[in-house]
């Protein structure tokens, strides 16, 4: 199985793994922890993101009923605020790391790689800060109907 660079230590090929299923499991360091994070956050996002998509976009009129008053009602609940904040953080980390893995595969020049990865990391961090501020500071009582 092809590995992209020597920077990614991989376990000896187990032989049982079917072809065409991506890279091997990393054995240590940053790549191992991000590998594990992708799977654990993925399981959490299976509930958070799939639940979010079904509630907001499919069931009960979907996005047709989503307006300011709907968010106001929804974010009056600490449960939904926590749901949305956790989803924000996990989805951004999962997505930005996913982009990093893809860039590692397709972008060879080290400088371009660093530039693209830095761009998405800074963008992800900025959006995490923005989203956190909005979720935490939003007070439904500030906007009387």
């Amino acid at each position, binding site marked *: 199985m092809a590995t992209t660079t020597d920077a990614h230590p991989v376990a000896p090929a187990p032989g049982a793994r079917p072809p065409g299923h*991506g890279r091997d499991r990393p054995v240590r360091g940053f790549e191992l922890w991000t590998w594990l994070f992708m799977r654990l956050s993925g399981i959490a996002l299976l509930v958070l993101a799939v639940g979010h998509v079904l509630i907001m976009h*499919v069931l009960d009129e979907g996005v047709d009923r989503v307006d300011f008053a709907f968010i106001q009602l929804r974010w009056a609940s600490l449960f939904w605020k926590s749901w949305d904040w956790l989803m924000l953080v996990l989805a951004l980390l999962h*997505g930005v790391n996913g*982009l990093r893995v893809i860039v590692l595969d397709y972008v060879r020049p080290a400088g371009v790689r660093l530039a693209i990865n830095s761009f998405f990391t800074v963008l992800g961090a900025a959006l995490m800060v*923005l989203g956190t501020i909005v979720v935490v500071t939003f007070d439904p009582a500030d906007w009387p109907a």
Partner: protein
Amino acid sequence: MATEDRTTEGDRKGRFGRLYKGHEGQYGWLLHRVTGVAIILFLFAHVVDTAVVGWGPDAYNRVASVYHNPFVRLLELGLVAAVLFHSFNGVRITLIDFFPGLTRHARALGVATILLFIGSMIPITWIMGTAIIDLLLES
């Protein structure tokens, strides 16, 4: 460039002579990447449009009205499909990674993933599709 030295299957078939066909798992892997990139690019925009809620009802309702458009709603259906495929396929990957014994059932897991995806997309396409048609008839 001695042709008689070519030994691998790919070389015998000719380097550019035939359409490359990958293992089916490879298409799942490619779709996982494509849907993942689509979702994160949408998410970047979605965090910003949701953040507008902090500027009050006038600003937010103007942003939310973007969804009152049949084409945007078609994209929305695509987004839901991408999230579901990425999630179900992600579960398949995680199961095989954490329980290597499941490799023997890789094909069955792949079929189950596709069936679960199609099975869930049928009612969702119906629900969202009728809403899109209603929106088209309205305008």
